[in-house]
């Protein structure tokens, strides 16, 4: 798994490539929490899943955890470029009910 972090105004854009499971999700969690800790100006998180090949409940758990972190800061978390097989998991887990999905990162930024 590879995590690419870029900044766009008050939003942190996180692009995850590869697989998010029990083995890799702690790295994902720590990376985002570290960024949020160091840059208090970030309010929103845009999660780009366009190159994420696999997520299971361990991965969804850390995504939900970050959703809670961002919500506590009064920000929004938006998933973008979500492949159909991952959207199905989001729906089944209930994450779709609380998290916004946008086609692209730019679309997400336009909603903030």
């Amino acid at each position: 798994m590879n995590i690419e972090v870029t900044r766009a105004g008050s939003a942190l854009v996180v692009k995850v490539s590869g697989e998010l499971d029990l083995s890799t999700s702690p790295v994902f969690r720590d990376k985002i929490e570290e960024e949020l800790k160091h840059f208090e100006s970030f309010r929103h998180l845009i999660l780009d899943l366009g190159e994420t090949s696999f997520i299971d409940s361990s991965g969804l758990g850390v995504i939900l955890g970050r959703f809670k972190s961002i919500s506590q800061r009064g920000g929004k978390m938006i998933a973008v470029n979500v492949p159909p097989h991952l959207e199905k998991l989001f729906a089944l887990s209930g994450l779709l009910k609380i998290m916004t999905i946008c086609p692209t990162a730019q679309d997400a930024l336009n909603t903030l």
Partner: protein
Amino acid sequence: MKTNYLRVEFPSLPENISLSRVIVASFAAQLDFTLSELEEIRVAVSEAVSNCVIHGYRDTTGEIRLELAIKDGTLEIVVIDYGCGIDDLALARTPAYSTDPERMGLGLVFMESFMDEMTIESEPGKGTRVVMKKNPERGKDHDKPGD
């Protein structure tokens, strides 16, 4: 269709979860599963093996046994650990139930949703055995080859 099987054992290390997904997906590809079905199988296996690592062995490392078979056109996946077992199986099967507040309690939900059949046998102190079965959707409307 010929019967085929594969049996592997590995330590309950998180890095072996992705390996188990690759093994099962490669084996399952012998049947006429769609890419979407293979994805569902990968998630179900990932959940079953993750449960062995997280709940079966907790802070210790033990052995996980993965038994795969193709019988009469059906994929059968058996995941076994010899860890602590499940105290209350009915409670464990409750959606969103988790012993860990950091987790969503969706592992068994995904396994049940994505496979045609799932059974769990568990004995506290002895371990847990999960059996999952799935048929390719494309083959369900047709007679089995050789019939």
